[in-house]
């Protein structure tokens, strides 16, 4: 059955949208990723205008991050002070990101922005994941434990001023790195429709050297904060949030995530991680294809 999306201004098969929400939710439950980096391009492939896809995906991210954040909060695994500092950077980043979004959308370049930012991002993530899962699978075949990566000691980070104590993370570091990380991830969030967990988590572990047990919860708080503020700004300044689309995606997302979490407890992760890596690379290839292939009609219309 078709349903009309008031902001995207198009009719869609709601069952397809629900399926996308379910599928991406399942993957996020399984791997603990937000899934925005898959959902946005999928919506664009389906024909949702890039701007609406980017702005609306953040509602899906909010919903699927909430249950994770609640679970982490119960385990006292959130460094709220760190999250707060990153949020300050995040608020500035959101403002800049939404402003950039408006400029690029007005210039009719939102499709280009999505393609140009997603191709390298998905290419790198997919490549790293593929590489890691192949290594792990090989190591398992030999019977060895996979090699661990140790945090690098970044001396320059400890030389920065404005140091503060983060009790929960057992850290005494400058607030500048978390501010900058929060800012950059929020800019990406606003113009790409991603939560940015896959950037936040490694940055917090390897750059800030936060203990891994508080990283997930703290990054989820930051992601939810940025997603909520971005949704509000996109709704008020760009009118790009489609509540109908958001409702279907969120419904699919939260249900899918629960199945993903259950499946993750039973399934062997490495083969699935390999599949996810291939899926991510396929999406990147499809976007790249769209950039390189001559369009069937070079003219397009907007404003009706």
């Amino acid at each position, binding site marked *: 059955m078709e349903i009309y999306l008031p902001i995207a201004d198009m009719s869609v098969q709601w069952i397809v949208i629900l399926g996308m929400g379910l599928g991406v939710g399942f993957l996020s439950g399984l791997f603990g990723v937000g899934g925005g980096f898959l959902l946005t391009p999928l919506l664009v492939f389906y024909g949702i205008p890039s701007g609406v896809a980017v702005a609306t995906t953040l509602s899906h991210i909010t919903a699927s991050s909430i*249950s994770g954040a609640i679970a982490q909060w119960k385990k006292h695994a959130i460094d709220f002070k760190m999250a707060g500092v990153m949020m300050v950077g995040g608020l500035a980043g959101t403002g800049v990101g939404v402003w950039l979004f408006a400029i690029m959308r007005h*210039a009719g370049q939102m499709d280009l922005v999505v393609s140009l930012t997603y191709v390298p991002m998905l290419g790198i993530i997919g490549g790293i994941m593929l590489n890691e899962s192949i290594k792990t699978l090989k190591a398992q075949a030999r019977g060895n434990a996979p090699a661990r990566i140790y945090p690098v000691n970044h001396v320059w980070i400890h030389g920065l001023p404005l140091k503060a104590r983060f009790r929960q993370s057992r850290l005494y570091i400058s607030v500048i790195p978390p501010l900058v990380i929060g800012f950059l991830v929020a800019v990406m969030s606003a113009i790409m429709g991603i939560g940015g967990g896959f950037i936040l988590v490694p940055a917090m572990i390897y750059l800030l050297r936060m203990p891994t047990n508080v990283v997930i919860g703290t990054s989820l708080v930051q992601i939810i904060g940025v997603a909520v503020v971005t949704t509000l700004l996109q709704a008020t300044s760009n009118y790009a*949030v489609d509540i109908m689309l958001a409702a279907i995606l969120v419904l699919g997302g939260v249900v899918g995530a629960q199945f993903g979490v259950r499946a993750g407890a039973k399934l062997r992760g490495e083969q699935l991680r390999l599949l996810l890596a291939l899926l991510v690379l396929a999406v990147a290839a499809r976007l790249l294809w769209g950039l390189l292939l001559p369009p069937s009609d070079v003219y397009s219309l907007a404003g009706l």
Partner: protein
Amino acid sequence: MRTVLLSTLLLVAVTAPVRGQELVSGVSQDLIQITSNYTGSDIVVFGAVEGQTQNQAPGAARKPKDVVVVVRGPDADITVRRRDRVAGIWINHDAADLSGMPSYYFLASTRPLSAIAPADVLARYGIGIQSLKPDAVHSHHDYEPFRQAALRHLEQSKLYSQVPGGVEFLSATLFRAHVPVPAGVTRGQYNVEVFLFRDKAVISAQSTPLFIDQTGLERRLYNFAHNQSFDYGLATVLMAIVMGWMSSLLFRRPV
């Protein structure tokens, strides 16, 4: 159907000041409400041309009369973008803003337009898709290819159409045309224009307004998003938070 048409026509004839005109016309519906399950509908434009009047010169009655029905939607500002290959990738490069083009245009006529009147006469009355020109153009280039692209796209999406032979005469005087109103039309005031041609010139014309409005949940959501955008954003965020929270309550993991 015929009697309904005739009686409606009589009503129009009574209410509208038609004395002294050779053309009377009406529309089957003057308000169309587009609801969420709207998939398009038809309206009927009907009318009558007066028969041979007593003061007509002998032989004049032999000359064919032609009727052209034009339905024009509210004006829109259309941006046409053209992709070009820049550094190996296809990006939107040039654009033209065409303002004052109708958002919807339908034409039905008794015969092909070229047989009815010469191009300059048609252009003067805005008859025919090719005669549609923007009021103002903002473009760095010759806008003609952009205009042609806009016409082509709008014809593909059925927002512009032209049907020679779409006006049928039910009798010597009574005519009728079906006007398709597809889903996706702009809301606002439409204008139904009926032209009567004889000797390649317009001898009578009549215009009737038609209103198209969108109703239902989607319209309310659209208004909500534009008029109270902060509350709308807040509602979206709350929905996401509540659904995420509910799911963690409902599917509590047995750990």
